[in-house]
């Protein structure tokens, strides 16, 4: 039986408004995620966190496609270098962070439920600059 390549989805992630300071001071990142997260194998006692958030575990358990909500937690778990509370609050981004999906407000795209496609550009901008 030949091995099958695991489908991934590659997206461009940008940070603005000072958020880049939390991600190694780098404004642009290329991220490759599993396009559809596998369900856990049968017989396992239960999902093992391995440091992943509840959303990521739930996504893996359900076999959900990778969406923006999963991307947020993936970024926190893999790219964030400091102060996670300044990026994530609960299961979504902290209040005051604007998210654009392909130059469009994520509120028009279903927010965290937007399913990522190959080549998408996701931008996270902090609005907490003062007047």
């Amino acid at each position, binding site marked *: 039986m030949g091995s099958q390549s695991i489908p991934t989805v590659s997206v461009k992630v940008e940070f*603005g*408004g*000072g958020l880049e300071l939390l991600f190694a001071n780098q404004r642009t990142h290329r991220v490759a995620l599993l396009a559809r997260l596998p369900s856990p194998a049968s017989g396992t006692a239960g999902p093992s966190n391995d440091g992943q958030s509840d959303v990521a575990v739930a996504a893996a358990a359900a076999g959900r496609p990778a969406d923006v909500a999963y991307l947020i937690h993936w970024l926190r778990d893999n790219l964030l270098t400091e102060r996670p509370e300044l990026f994530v609050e609960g299961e979504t981004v902290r*209040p*005051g962070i*604007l998210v*654009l999906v392909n*130059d*469009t*407000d994520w*509120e*028009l795209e279903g*927010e965290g439920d937007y399913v990522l496609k190959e080549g998408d550009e996701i*931008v996270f*901008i902090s*609005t*907490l*600059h*003062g*007047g």
Partner: protein
Amino acid sequence: MSCGNPTVESDALMPRRKKYDKTRQCVRCKLSTGNVVIRYAVYCKECFFPLITHKFRRSLEPSVNERPQGPRRTALKPAGNLLVGFSGGLGSTVLLDLVHRCYVSMDQSTMPSDGGKQHPRHEKIWKRVSVCYVEIAGAFPGMQDSSPDVETLIAQHDGVDLISLRIQDAFDPAWWQRVAGRPALSDLDFDLTTEGTSPLTLLLSYPYGRHTELHLIFNPSSSSTPLEKLQAYLASLPTATAVHSTIQNLIRLLLLHTALQTQSSHLVLGTSLTSLAMSLISGVSQGRGFNLKEEMQEEWVPSVPDPAEDVSSITTRRRYVRVIRPLRDVGRKECTLWTWWTGLRVVAAVRPPWVGARQDIGTLTHDFITGLERDYPSTVSTIVRTCAKVAPKGEVSGLCLLCARPVQHGIQEWKSRISIRTRDVPDAGEQSSAQVPAPLAPHLCYACHTTLTSKSSRPPPALYPEISRSSVAPAPVWVLSFMTDREMFQTSRMNEQDQRNTLKDFLLED
């Protein structure tokens, strides 16, 4: 009958309201698919820029002429120049860009389409556009000075000049002399300067010992620098909230006096809808409810005479500074998108590195409104619209010595009615027969009095560990000018010995 328990019944949960009304089509052009949701309304990127520009002009231009425009719009002819208050933050950056496009570089894409290209509104309105930046790094040890970044940014905008101040200028007699054209002490006609002595400074004396009220006293000035005086003033404040609101007041007064110096009739600030909601709520929390209207828009008539004014002229032009917030209908989200889509850089986005700065009313309000803006975006604009409708009761009793805003009549009587206090009445023999400066409290607004006297059960960490809190602190340089304007002192010529005898009880030993 079900109990509607969402844990048991999945459809018992109320469906989450959509973040936008109707469809994803732009509500303005009705052609393109939308790119942004602004308080449930959808706009495309092409319509976003004219929308924000229109809101900016709509908020500013009705206030340009000295008299309000009637139903028939006339040409815009301001009484003076334009000063842009620039903090380096998000709103300021957007404001500067809009001012430059609309009034300096005359970007055609920002021009109203009606009236034709030859309409007078397409001509330059302001003879001179200046930008004033106040650096606050001196107030917070360890804070980065953003002045070089601001200077670089402003240099990229042709046709505007930068006036860069430091917040300690509020305690600098040299700055006051540049603005008012003469030293502050000469207003009182006190002349104690002899060889080897230095002019007096005005000190704010907190209640201590038998003195239960705030007072102003005079002291021979030491060699303290303006920065040291600023830090002594801030160190004397009782709460973190007081530090934050004092800095805002100092910046405001510096900007107002700079507007006078630049012959500007209009001072524009980059306060967004979101920031305005924060300042209104935190202001009411601190007792600024009487000045809600001024927080949104105000007209300040200075007591400082114009150094350039020809006193021999029969007709003198009424001087005023109108403080306008043209972005008051533009939310923080829109400001962020403007900077992102136009490639603008926000230079000063750093919070002061003082732990106490996270514990004050201003910061708590900021976090509260930020959460509201995400979950219930309409409530933020409702706050501002409601405050615009509120008209506080009460008469005005002069202007506050510290913040130059109207003082509500009867504050001290009200405070004495609602509080229980003991007052030590000094013996008649203790009173000097010489003139005594009036107590400060009757000349302060409620909020400034509370700022100076309200104590916290949990004092913040010391802003300057090496400076202990003192019962006296230097007063900002404009206080003396405001006092003489109200004739708080009788002036009469005394010989030098009488002057020293009069003031010996108020002089502090070095």
